[in-house]
């Protein structure tokens, strides 16, 4: 039996009273349990990192602690789903996507079992923890697995709606989130439709398409550019797969330039998905994919990394300006 947490402990500081934003995942699952859904949540020694501790405390009979055994967690979740439960399992995105790739492919996706895989601390949000903890390949891996839907919510409110939308969705889903205390994009919850992009602005000079954690800074950049007189549109492409082709075609029809922004390798992620749509339609649009340029990211606090890689609002604005001026 674990001792009660000291209020000096890191775990205590992660809990509701101190870091309320971290509870979005738990809150969404608690709603589903209240609705009578056969939900079970699991994690691999990370309940304080992903905020499942709140769910655990409220529903200990619906929580499974797997310890540091991610592959076992994914296969066991598939087994649970095969006999009628709806498992949500969460661990660092890097370990989930890379270590458990085969378990996800064979045990979950191939068999279309309703397992919800939550990869948290995605991208470079674990900053100085280093390369092992940076997930800059997960979208590419997950996107290439058939039957698997890939969603990257921008904030806690959207995450809650994604989980609500996921409840009766007939495919397995990879849900890519950040640290659970990201800046708010959506002040209120609004219904989420899997596979539909959310249009914030139209634009005839440039369309910015972002996903997940980059939605907030990219929106800020969009607003700054618009305030400066450029006609810049913005799409939140929360569902990376299946990608919203219509929204991309519409964006390409509006503007001769598209900038994709993601906290991921530019190869194989959102930018790759958009490129595939544009190429297959033969559209004459200048596409610039912005993200991590096929390298292992540096060690630093996340805010420093975002500035370094031009993934903060200022950096995205600079990137977009270069594109508008024909310098990129």
């Amino acid at each position, binding site marked *: 039996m674990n001792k009660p947490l000291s209020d000096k402990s890191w775990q205590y500081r992660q809990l509701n009273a101190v870091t309320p934003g971290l509870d979005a995942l738990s809150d969404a699952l608690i709603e589903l349990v209240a609705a009578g859904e056969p939900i079970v949540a699991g994690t691999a020694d990370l309940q304080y990192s992903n905020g499942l501790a709140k769910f655990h405390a409220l529903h200990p009979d619906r929580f499974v602690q797997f310890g540091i055994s991610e592959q076992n967690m994914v296969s066991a979740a598939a087994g649970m789903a095969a006999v009628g439960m709806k*498992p949500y399992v969460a661990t660092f995105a890097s370990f989930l996507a890379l270590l458990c790739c085969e378990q996800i492919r064979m045990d979950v996706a191939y068999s279309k079992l309703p397992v919800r895989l939550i990869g948290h601390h995605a991208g470079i949000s674990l900053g100085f923890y280093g390369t092992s903890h940076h997930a800059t390949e997960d979208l590419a891996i997950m996107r290439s697995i058939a039957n698997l839907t890939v969603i990257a919510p921008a904030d806690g409110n959207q995450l809650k709606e994604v989980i609500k939308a996921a409840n009766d969705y007939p495919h397995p889903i990879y849900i890519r989130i950040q640290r659970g205390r990201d800046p708010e994009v959506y002040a209120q919850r609004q219904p989420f439709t899997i596979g539909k992009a959310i249009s914030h602005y139209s634009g005839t000079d440039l369309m910015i398409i972002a996903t997940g954690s980059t939605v907030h800074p990219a929106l800020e950049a969009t607003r700054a550019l618009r305030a400066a007189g450029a006609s810049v549109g913005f799409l939140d492409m929360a569902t990376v797969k299946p990608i919203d082709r219509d929204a991309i075609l519409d964006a390409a029809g509006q503007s001769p330039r598209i900038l994709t922004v993601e906290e991921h390798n530019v190869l194989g992620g959102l930018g790759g998905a958009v490129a595939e749509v544009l190429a297959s339609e033969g559209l004459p649009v200048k596409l610039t994919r912005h993200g991590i340029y096929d390298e292992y990211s540096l060690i630093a606090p996340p805010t420093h990394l975002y500035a370094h890689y031009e993934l903060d609002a200022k950096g995205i604005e600079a990137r977009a300006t270069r594109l508008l001026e024909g310098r990129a």
Partner: protein
Amino acid sequence: MAFLKDRAKFCRLETIRLIEIAKVGHYTSVFSAAELFSALYYDAMDLRRGEPKWEDRDRFMMGKGHAAVGLFPLLADLDFIDRDVLDGYTRLGNPLGDHPDMTKVPGIDFSSGSIGHALSAGCGMALAGRMLGKDFYTYVMIGDGELQEGQVWEAALFGAHNGLGKLIGIIDRNGYQLDGSVDDIIGVEPIVEKWQAFGWETHVVDGHDVAAVATLLRTLKADRERTRPVMIIAETVKGKGVSYMETEPGWHLGYLDPSDAARAIAEIEAMEI
């Protein structure tokens, strides 16, 4: 027990017949497990003939998925799959291949092929069964070579920690894997002590003594209050029933030409019932 022996013989003969269609297959992996299959499917497991999706059925999955060719005839025999589907084994578009596929084959409770996942999935099934208030048992057969996969030991920790008393593992300890003997490749002994150390109840049984296997499975099932998962270590012979396969470990994957097949069939027919 004559019936169980007969069904093990049927499993072996059908395996030879089906592999003739595919021209290559895992005879010996089936032959080591034939009595285990028979005891499970015709005695131990709660199943309903013709109702592969019956919700309260016991579940079975094979980590050693390459022995599926021996399982399919039993599923046809239990009216889970059609006879003509069985006879089309591996033909273009047929659901039956070298590994069991839950999305295509009624009666397959979990797909396998990637070695080392099944015990984890079995842990999930057993735990979910408990959470859902169900009374079914989950049986997972794994190979002794499969014990080389690290994930098996993650599941070993998990099953014991969570007291999964309705999870029954069976190790088909036939001593061989594709590249040679398990002892030579990467030894996994002492198997019994390892599982005991991980907190599992262990039983060692002669895997070809179908009466002993069936009796053990019945005894285990009778204790519905058990709080530890069980691992049965079934001592088996790779290729059991065909003399030249038993003495030649290179048969993990193979094809019998017509004269060898005739010899094999004759030897299996002559097995004591």
